[in-house]
Structures are given as structure tokens and as C-alpha cells.
């Protein structure tokens, strides 16, 4: 095989593997159920939420989390609440923080899972951001 052709084809297939597959952050069924119970049929837009969480959390009992948005607050457009969702925790909905512009806290995680941060605006829009966190020690029992 021509070296150039080989590089081109393998390059594309590797890129394809990285794009699709199990790393997709589409919420699983039970998470969708929790979202639906809490927010109804409102759509979640992937934008504006900025959250810091370590990619590797050695101790699932204490996972630091920091949430904020890049929306400049005005009297008629501000964040009403932040919500934290962990896909594989016994309690999927971990916490809600209402009335603050940013929040710094610690949560527990049972195992490696997506963590979803949702910012609910006063006008009803929902912004979401998801990050996968690798957990070594189970913090939930």
C-alpha cells in the first residue's frame, strides 16, 4: 500500500473512533427520567455553563466541584439555580443551588461517570455541560 494512502485511511478511522462510541455524553434512560421529572420537556442547550471538576478523582467521597456561567447577570436575566447530576450515583440528582451566581462545594461519586452541571435561568432556559470523571474509590457505599 502507498504510504500516503495508508496514513490517510488510518488517520480517518482513528478520528472516527474518537468521535463516536461509548464516550458519547448522551444521558442514559434513568438520567433522562430524572431530568424529565424535574424540568419537564424543556430543552437543554449545551452552552454557557462553566464547571471545574477534576478529571481523575482518587477519592469518591470528596470530589470538588465549582459551577459558574459566562452569562453577565442583569436584573432580568440571571441564573436562578444550578443543578448537579451524576449519572451513576444512587441519587442521580445530587444537589440544587438556588440564588447564587457561582458555587464551590464537594460531592460524592459512586464510580466513573458523567457529571452534568445545569444552569437554570430566570427566563426558563436550561444550559448544560457534561464532563466524565474517573473515580477510583467508591464514595457512596
Amino acid at each position: 500500500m502507498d504510504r500516503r494512502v495508508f496514513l490517510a485511511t488510518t488517520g480517518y478511522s482513528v478520528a472516527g473512533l474518537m468521535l463516536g462510541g461509548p464516550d458519547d455524553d448522551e444521558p442514559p434512560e434513568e438520567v433522562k427520567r430524572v431530568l424529565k421529572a424535574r424540568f419537564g420537556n424543556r430543552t437543554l442547550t449545551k452552552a454557557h455553563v462553566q464547571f471545574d471538576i477534576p478529571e481523575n478523582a482518587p477519592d469518591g467521597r470528596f470530589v470538588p466541584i465549582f459551577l459558574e456561567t459566562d452569562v453577565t447577570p442583569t436584573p432580568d436575566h440571571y441564573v436562578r439555580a444550578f443543578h448537579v447530576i451524576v449519572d451513576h450515583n444512587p441519587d442521580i440528582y445530587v444537589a440544587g443551588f438556588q440564588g447564587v451566581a457561582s458555587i464551590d462545594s464537594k460531592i460524592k461519586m459512586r464510580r466513573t461517570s458523567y457529571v452534568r452541571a445545569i444552569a437554570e435561568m430566570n427566563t426558563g432556559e436550561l444550559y448544560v455541560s457534561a464532563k466524565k470523571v474517573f473515580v477510583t474509590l467508591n464514595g457512596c457505599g
Partner: protein
Amino acid sequence: MATGDARVLLPPSIKNGDVIYVRAIIEHPMDTGFFRTAEGQPIPAFFINDVSVAYGDQQIAHFEWTSGVSRDPSVTFPLKATREAPVTVTWKDNKGGVYHQTVDLRFS
């Protein structure tokens, strides 16, 4: 230290109009109900599920927690200091325990 010991921390120097960071810490086991003791007895769920923050006579924030928040929970949040008034944080747990802590916000 025992369950319910709490502290609310403000920065040492505050000016009118500053955005300050308030830190609220409470001593609480936050048991999930899934763990067992060394003897195999299940530890019942015991956690804080409701936190509210008041600035003066106005309630400014309300947090809804589950047992998924870490032991001895601490939160840090911004607050715009617009007047001299006490900041009160109230924690409530699932067994009816209510814990208060107040700190006076003074300009200096």
C-alpha cells in the same frame, strides 16, 4: 466538634458594594444509608437536605441537597455587600435537626 457545629466565614475586610465570598461549613456525617458498620449493622441515612441563607431580613439563597454531598459539607458562594446586616445560614437534616449560624457583616 460535634454534629451541627457550624461556621460562616467572611473576608477580613469588606467595603460597601464589594462582591465577597461567603464560606459556610457545618459538621455533619451526611450518611447515605448504604454503608454498614464494622459489625455489619447498616448505618441509617442521615444528611442535610435543606440549606437557606438570609442576608438581613431577606432570604437570598436556598440549596437543596441529597446524601450525595460530601461529609462535613462546605459551600462557598458570592454575595454583594450592599448594607451592614447579619448573614444567617440555616441547615436542616432529614431527622428534623435544625442548625443556625449567624455572622455580622460590617464594613471596614
